[in-house]
């Protein structure tokens, strides 16, 4: 079972990973975006980590709701509301139990991803974070490792796609051949789950 501490470790691991990879995320956001994805998430997850340390919410749901709100309040751009909504809605779906199972998390995360799809209007194949999140949620029933692998593959698979949502869509065919920065950061977020689980 996964307790509040696991979810705090998840967010801390995500913050560290985003911090390490910020330059790469921004570099991915340069040819098909506006070169800010790395610094956006770096700022946001640093704020999340700081808030979680200070407020120390006691349930898995409360951790994610607080993290999501913090992202909304500090990131901006497209990824702020989208990742913020992902965590907030996942957190709400987790309810207020003190512990949840991996299966419950997978189910709640599916609700969160659906909320992101509704908010942003992106479908799989549109070359967005959705392309890493959807396969990750599907694989999460199996294991954290499987989810990590699926998210990474989903992110890599965005390279040949033509973007239909977000900034990259302005480029039309010129968006082909570049990996989507948001799908890449989504894969980092999923990989951080495995880290938090210590697997």
């Amino acid at each position, binding site marked *: 079972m996964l307790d509040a501490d696991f979810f705090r470790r998840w967010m801390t691991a995500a913050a560290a990973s985003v911090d390490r990879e910020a330059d790469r995320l921004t570099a991915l956001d340069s040819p098909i*975006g506006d070169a800010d994805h790395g610094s956006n998430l770096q700022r946001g997850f640093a704020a999340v980590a700081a808030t979680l340390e200070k407020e120390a919410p006691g349930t898995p749901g409360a951790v994610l709701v607080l993290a999501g709100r913090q992202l909304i309040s500090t990131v901006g751009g497209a990824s702020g*509301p989208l990742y913020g909504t992902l965590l907030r809605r996942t957190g709400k779906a987790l309810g207020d139990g003190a512990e949840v199972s991996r299966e419950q998390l997978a189910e709640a995360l599916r609700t969160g991803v659906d909320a992101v799809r509704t908010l942003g209007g992106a479908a799989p194949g549109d070359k967005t974070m959705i392309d890493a999140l959807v396969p990750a949620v599907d694989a999460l029933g199996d294991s954290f490792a499987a989810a990590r692998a699926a998210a990474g593959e989903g992110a890599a698979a965005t390279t040949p796609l033509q973007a239909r949502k977000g900034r990259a869509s302005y480029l039309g065919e010129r968006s082909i051949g570049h990996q989507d920065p948001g799908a890449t950061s989504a894969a980092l977020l999923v990989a951080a789950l495995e880290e938090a689980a210590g697997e």
Partner: protein
Amino acid sequence: MRMLINVPETVVADALRGMAAAHPELTVDVENRVVVRGDAPVAGQVALVSGGGSGHEPLHGGFVGPGMLAAACPGEVFTSPVPDQMVRAAAAVDSGAGVLFVVKNYTGDVLNFDMAAELAEDEGIRVAKVLVNDDVAVTDSLYTAGRRGTGATLFVEKIAGAAAREGRPLEQVEALARRVNESSRSFGVALSAVTTPAKGSPTFDLPAGELELGIGIHGEPGRERRPMMTSGEIAEAAVDAVLTDLAPRNPVLVLVNGMGATPLLELYGFNAEVQRVLGERGVAVARTLVGNYVTSLDMAGASVTLCEIDEELLGLWDAPVRTPGLRWGM
């Protein structure tokens, strides 16, 4: 890095401090990143609130003042602001007559302003929104995030701002803003890529002797790369692109807008070509504005925006305005 900055992290806060010092008539909340006209809220007037990523100055902070915006919310460089900023701005400027959010059509701006509108309404503020989406380089279809908001933002903010100053009700100001947007189209070209403080190197590689057609204002590449063209050829490409989507039968307002690093000398020369092409295409010009108004940091290049107008819109355009970036009649 050829930047006049301290560190990338404080660029926006530093600029707001500098704005506060230069413009005592504005109230600049550096910590919360809100620029408000000093006499807000103004009784009986709808308040326009806009915002977006920084790096497009004077848009939007430079358009705060009587006859234009009541407040602006600057985000990080090229990053939409967060909802907290817009909620705070709305609360500061609402006189009870309601607030109009002027939102450029980018996923980030739309999502953040939408969240802000919900939160502001929860606080009892009447909020209307207008989306600006004038850039013809992007097809408005299922396969894109829709046309981008660029130069027309200035027309929307000026004209709706003048209507607000006349004391018109929220629904009218909103409708007018929407009409200005629907009557406006833009097209931009880049002669160089842009360098953001956070990245410190050009966002894409554009060799000298080539240009990007159909660019936005966030350093993203355009739809097409071409060998360098003359000012006359660029004017033809830009005007004709705009006219495929807008067939004005009335006179137009013309904005010949610099992206930041193109000298005014070149912009005026470009304007001469734009006017020539408009003349050849039979488009009558009512007013022309030439300068750096909706910029993209240190990008070289320019955009052309046309807005078809009638007597009412022209009167509102000519009405007095007093902001750091646009000022006449007072």
